[in-house]
Each structure stands twice: as structure tokens, then as C-alpha cells.
């Protein structure tokens, strides 16, 4: 049987909107393509199996069909569809990986005073610079950040995905990203106002 020529973007959209056997055939082709791409990409990972990949692709197909009008033609249609599928897959993996971790456990203060011992690679002068910089930063956190900003920032520093922070805060990714951005801007501005230049900071931690 001769191999079918790849569909152009407009043909994908037309066929997926067609209904009936034309749509069914396009969906079958797209499903196969997404399954092969995602399965290959996840092959090296130990945290997924074929059932997970098939489930994600099924969800992705429904999402794609519901959002065809959002395709702007700035990439191949199949790349756009794969990007959606990857997003759904990674989101599911993040949710699974972090499901038992609370925001409170990420932001709980450590027991005792933090150890700022000098290691062999740091000169006494550099160690003093680091110490002064961190003291300034700690003061700025207390003065310039809201409790919510510090909570989100600490969770992010601990590796919690923004999406998971947002879920726990009852918010969304964009809002939390903006919250984090504002927090970083306040700290950066605070350091600059205190007299620290980017070069000072670089040399303290070089």
C-alpha cells in the first residue's frame, strides 16, 4: 500500500473539522504520530509506561479538537499538537511526583542556625562578602516581600514546579509566575539600592 503524503497544515485543520470518516482517519493518523513521538521521547525515563502515554495522547486529541481555532500556523500543525501533548504529559507527571508534598513542608524553616562555614575554596575576604550579602538579602526578604511571595519563592527554590505551587495556592501558573517575578524584582532593586552591583554579587560567589 503506497505511503500517504504528509498533510499540510490547512489539510489537517480541514480534515479534523470534517466529521465522519475523514475526521476519523485524520484522528487515527494524528494519534499514531503523537504516540510514536511521545513514546520515543519518554523511552529513557523510568516514570512512565505505555498506558500513561496512551492516556495522555487521548486527552491531547480531545484538547486539540476543542482548540483548533487557537492554531495560528506559526509552526507545523503536528509540532503544535505535539507541544500540547507534551504539556499535558509533563503536567501529569509533575502532579504525580509532587502529590504528597505540601507547600508547608517546602517552606518550613530549617532547624537551628544555617551553617555558613567557610570551605577551602573561599578566601576569608570572600567569605565575609558572602556573609554580608546574604545578611542584606535576608533583611530585604523580611522588609520587601509578602508572606505569600516568600512562600512561593522558597517552594520554587526547593524545586517545586510553579504549576504545583499554583495548585496549592488555589491560583494559576501565570499569577504565581508574576508573583515570583515581582518578588525577585523587589529583591534585585533592594540589593541595587543598598549599593550592590551585579559585579559585586558575581565576585562574592565566583
Amino acid at each position, binding site marked *: 500500500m503506497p505511503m500517504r503524503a504528509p498533510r499540510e497544515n490547512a489539510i489537517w485543520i480541514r480534515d479534523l473539522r470534517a466529521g465522519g470518516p475523514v475526521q476519523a482517519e485524520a484522528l487515527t493518523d494524528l494519534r499514531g504520530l503523537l504516540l510514536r513521538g511521545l513514546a520515543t521521547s519518554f523511552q529513557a525515563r523510568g516514570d512512565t509506561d505505555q498506558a500513561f502515554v496512551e492516556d495522555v495522547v487521548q486527552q491531547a486529541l480531545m484538547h486539540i479538537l476543542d482548540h483548533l481555532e487557537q492554531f495560528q500556523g506559526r509552526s507545523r500543525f503536528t509540532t503544535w499538537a505535539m507541544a500540547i501533548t507534551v504539556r499535558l504529559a509533563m503536567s501529569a507527571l509533575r502532579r504525580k511526583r509532587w502529590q504528597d508534598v505540601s507547600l508547608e513542608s517546602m517552606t518550613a524553616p530549617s532547624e537551628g542556625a544555617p551553617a555558613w562555614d567557610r570551605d577551602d575554596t573561599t578566601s576569608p575576604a570572600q567569605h565575609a562578602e558572602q556573609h554580608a550579602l546574604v545578611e542584606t538579602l535576608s533583611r530585604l526578604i523580611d522588609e520587601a516581600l509578602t508572606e505569600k511571595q516568600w512562600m512561593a519563592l522558597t517552594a520554587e527554590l526547593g524545586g517545586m514546579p510553579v504549576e504545583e505551587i499554583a495548585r496549592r495556592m488555589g491560583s494559576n501558573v501565570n499569577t504565581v509566575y508574576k508573583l515570583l517575578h515581582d518578588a525577585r*524584582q523587589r529583591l534585585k532593586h533592594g540589593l541595587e539600592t543598598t549599593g550592590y552591583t551585579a559585579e559585586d554579587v558575581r565576585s562574592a*560567589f565566583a
Partner: protein
Amino acid sequence: MALRPEQAKALIAKVMGTRDQEMTCDECVADLAEFVEVQLTRKPLGDALQAVHEHLERCHDCTDEYHVLRQALAALAEEEGR
């Protein structure tokens, strides 16, 4: 606020890398397909896609998605070329 050393270092790096205007994760995802295609064909990035590149330097979640998408597309391209 008592910062642990590794926490302080990571925070300082994030703070000093902050720009006035930053792309959000949703904006990055909207441009990611185009960004990966341009990267795979080794064409130069325009200004809009440069913002994606900068976002990826800051955002671990989007970087993860970028790598998975790139691998998936490379696998399909190889399949097409066979």
C-alpha cells in the same frame, strides 16, 4: 529570615537574572512549537523567540517540556526521513 547557604546561592542567581519584562510560562508554551522548529532547522531566533530562550534559562518546568518536545520531534523527523 535565615537563609541556608545553598538556598541563598540559588536565590541570588535567580534575583540577579531577573529582567523587567519576562515572558510567563503560558506565553512560552504558546511559542514553544515554533521555537523548537527554528532550533531544529538552525535558523536564527527572532526577538519573540529570543524571549522564549530567555524564559527557558529561568524556568525549569518549561525547559523540561522543551527537551521532551525536541526529542519527540527529532524521533518523528527521523521516521519521516527513513
